């Protein structure tokens, strides 16, 4: 029972921290806020059931995990609604199952390394790209505010943001970080 409560608590905490953000993310992809709310609820419900399993390890990278699952569920939803279900390149089994959120030790080390690489690469970004990117993507500051804070036009903010993402991708690839293989410790990889 103690474990049950602990699990509910931690799921509750995660929901409060990331629920609204995930809902926005899913709603943006599927353009239906009511369905997005349901999808996100479902994600947390399955997460709760998953964590009740006594062999489950704690969720090490909750945000990356949740967004990954949210992306998959959102695309799954679009695919089911779409009249042309062809083009997603995501196989049925992968999106419909709930991945194991607990990473094995080996996997965990790899993910930590990835995080280190992202942190390093961010640090090396040209100053103006880094500022815009960190404000927008890490601190979640809306674009108009970034633009007034850094005295840049909204267009310049967009431009620097896109440039930053491109640079980030390029540098990560140079360091041998394979974005296609970037999992979340859940074995939920793209098809090879």
């Amino acid at each position, binding site marked *: 029972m103690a474990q049950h409560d602990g699990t509910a608590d931690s799921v509750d905490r995660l929901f409060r921290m990331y629920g609204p953000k995930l809902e926005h993310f899913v709603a943006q992809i599927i353009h239906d806020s009511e369905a997005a709310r349901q999808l996100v609820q479902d994600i947390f419900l399955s997460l709760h059931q998953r964590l009740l399993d006594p062999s489950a390890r704690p969720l090490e990278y909750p945000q990356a995990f949740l*967004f990954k699952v949210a992306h998959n569920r959102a695309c799954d939803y679009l695919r089911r609604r779409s009249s042309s279900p062809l083009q997603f*390149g995501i196989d049925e089994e992968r999106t419909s199952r709930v991945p194991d959120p607990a990473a094995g030790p080996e996997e965990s080390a790899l993910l930590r390394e990835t995080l280190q690489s992202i942190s390093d690469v961010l640090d090396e970004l040209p100053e103006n790209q*880094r500022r815009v990117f960190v404000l927008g993507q890490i601190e979640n500051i809306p674009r108009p505010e970034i633009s007034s804070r850094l005295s840049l036009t909204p267009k310049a903010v967009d431009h620097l943001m896109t440039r930053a993402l491109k640079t980030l991708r390029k540098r990560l690839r140079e360091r041998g970080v394979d974005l296609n293989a970037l999992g979340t410790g859940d074995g939920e990889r793209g098809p090879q």
Partner: protein
Amino acid sequence: MRFGSRNPDTVEEEADRWALRIRGESLTDAEHAEFLHWLHANALHARAFEQRCTLLAWVCELKSHPEFGHAKWRTNPASDGSRRIARGWLIGVAAAASIAVIATGIAFRYDLSPASHYETHVGEMRVVRLSDGSTATLDTATRMEWKNGEREREVNLVSGQALFDVAHDPAKPFIVHVGKTTIRVTGTRFDVYRYGADDIWLTVVQGVVEVSGPGTSTEAAWRRLIHAREQVVYRSERVITDVHSVTSNRALKWMDHELDVEDESLGDVIHELTRYTAAPIILQDPSLAQIRIAATFDLRDVSGALTQLQSIARVKLVRKGASYVISGPSDIGSQLSPRSTDSQQ
């Protein structure tokens, strides 16, 4: 590859742009249509988009990570030596953090505790998962009791408002007691609102609901059957507004933290807003209550809603101690005709 004729560079850049836009401001219908068109156009697009989403999710992970949360890139002052910008950035972080705290206070709570009493504070909204698999979404200042009995599932709505999504179970009816009245269903979606001490508003979203006044189930004082997209207003002794259809899901706007008012009196609007704030809202002149209002308010920001009312209803708002006091503007107060609709839409 077989589909698009685009060169790989363009695809990569388009994917960057879409992934950033999806994480940014809300897309319009047209923009979303454009996004879907792009996403469906080529399997490579979907793959590239997924890749970006994954990367950006990992980027977000940095902030809360114990090890990287304080990494250099966060506080690194501008290398061009611009202290002004460096400071603005730190202040911004502090502001963002405090906003986040406020926001989580009123965000949905996800609750799986086995307790049978549920309560929300003023301004709180919470989703409760009941032990039979049904869910109840409780709006502000709501009290509810739950019992999963042998033969019946029972809720007692003591105060406030709740939307029920009832898990289908024909063998075990789901019953909601509100005062002396009873709502009985097997599996459906409906909203119950206890308005003041007596009035109860019942809106059915899906399925069929039976509602009855005091008395045994065969000899109730009154009884109604409500279908999807219908609403009824009643008290324990009688029906006030009989079953009528509702065109929109307006009764459920509270789920989006919205109060959508088409043509209602200022008095009713204040009554609604009062549910979402602990601060009393006082109408200095009772005749002001008659002013008609059409507007949409954000229930998470009652003070903002009242400020909005200032221009919509042409009233004056003053904060006195813990209360809000609304008065007619002294210069035109005498001309203020109670029925005039001065909504500025």
